[in-house]
């Protein structure tokens, strides 16, 4: 199986011995050995997936990298976070997924209001199976565990990814004061309940509601 490791915090090194990985198109920065790069139509699920992604806007510009040696990936000096999946499902935006083992299945799923609050649309990408993946964040991501007694609230702009068995609600503290300008500026949060992990970045993206 392909071996993922970090070379510094912003470069992903993948050791390959004949296997393949799926990587964000154009993210290869260097390689050592023999590699072939093949354009893929997208993020899996065959023709149905292709159509789904076209409709949902969850495009994945993916390439398949196969070979012997070490391949290095990076994207706009963003931080790389390794995720080891053991049968769970990882939810991540297509633009934040840097690389995934070929054994992992990727697909598209509906996220509802949470996605639209992030300004990322209503759909997100899922990665499922057993193997390693690498996700991108602005600044080192913090991994937070959610348990039955400890639900977690996350600012939509700082959310990166989550895995495990989590339900999410869109939580709003909007009241009439928000409309007369005395809002709290933290009026919207995503509340995660259940059991799983949430990846949060120390940076707030612009969201559809402005700086939430």
């Amino acid at each position, binding site marked *: 199986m392909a*071996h*993922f*490791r970090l070379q510094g915090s912003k470069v992903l090194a993948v050791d390959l011995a004949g296997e393949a990985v799926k990587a964000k198109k154009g993210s290869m920065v260097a390689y050592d050995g023999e590699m072939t790069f093949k354009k893929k139509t997208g993020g899996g699920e065959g023709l149905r997936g292709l159509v789904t992604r076209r409709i949902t806007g969850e495009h994945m510009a993916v390439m398949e990298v196969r070979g012997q040696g070490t391949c290095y990936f990076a994207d706009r000096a963003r931080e790389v*976070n*390794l*995720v*080891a999946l053991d049968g769970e499902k990882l939810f991540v935006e297509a633009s934040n997924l840097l690389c995934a083992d070929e054994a992992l299945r990727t697909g598209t799923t509906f996220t509802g209001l949470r996605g639209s609050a992030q300004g990322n649309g209503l759909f997100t990408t899922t990665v499922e199976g057993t193997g*390693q993946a690498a996700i991108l964040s*602005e*600044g*080192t*991501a*913090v*991994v*937070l*565990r*959610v*348990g039955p*007694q*400890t*639900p*977690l*609230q*996350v*600012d939509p*702009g*700082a959310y990166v990814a989550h895995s495990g068995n989590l339900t999410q609600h869109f939580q709003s*503290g*909007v009241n009439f*004061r*928000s409309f*007369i*300008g*005395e*809002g*709290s*500026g*933290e*009026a*919207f949060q995503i509340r995660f309940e259940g059991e799983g*992990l*949430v990846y*949060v*970045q*120390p*940076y*707030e993206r612009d969201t559809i*509601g*402005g*700086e*939430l």
Partner: protein
Amino acid sequence: MNGPVIHDAYSLPVNDNVNPYVFSVDLDGQWFLQKGKMIAYYGQIAFQGVGLGHLERLVARSFHSPLHAADWVVAEGRGRMLLADRAFDVNSYDLDDGNLTIRSGNLLAFQPSLSLKQSIVPGFLTLIGTGTFVAASNGPVVFMEPPIRVDPQALVGWADCPSPCHHYDHHYMRGFLGGVRAHTGFGGTSGEEHQFEFTGAGTVLLQSSEMLLEERPVGVKGDTGS
């Protein structure tokens, strides 16, 4: 493979950094917070705009910056709260019956035992009292002692220093050409003609970059979304 450190509601640091960019506050009571700097929290925490009914006594005690009131909220409750700002370095500082002046955009949060006032230097805020505050800087903060002249963009703040003032190069000041250059930039400028000068005893805080946190207009209601 050694994976990332996984934190939960109990293992998060108590009033300390999680990593250079994220600070964890163990909240039990109230903290002042600049809008939009909270990235996640565990527990029961409510966020209220400054100037709401039941917070009046708190605001009367520790918030004296009407120009910035629209940018601040009070976090109230119990839990662990994570603060971060655009992946800049964040650090906490303790004041012990002291005073510290800081660029308004760099201040993330402070304990209500401190009192926040507007500095007479535009764009800066002064904290007076005893307590903890959290501030961001682009790159680690460097502590310097006066006498020192610093680049205006690299200045984060200063503590206990009397009389910060402007300093202009002599060449820049002199003659007609200098005046033209000053107003038009024609004839070339080095970009380093103007500094802030500190004298006396105290500490000056610098960041290792001249990129500032984005300046926002202060005192404008409703410009930050909700």
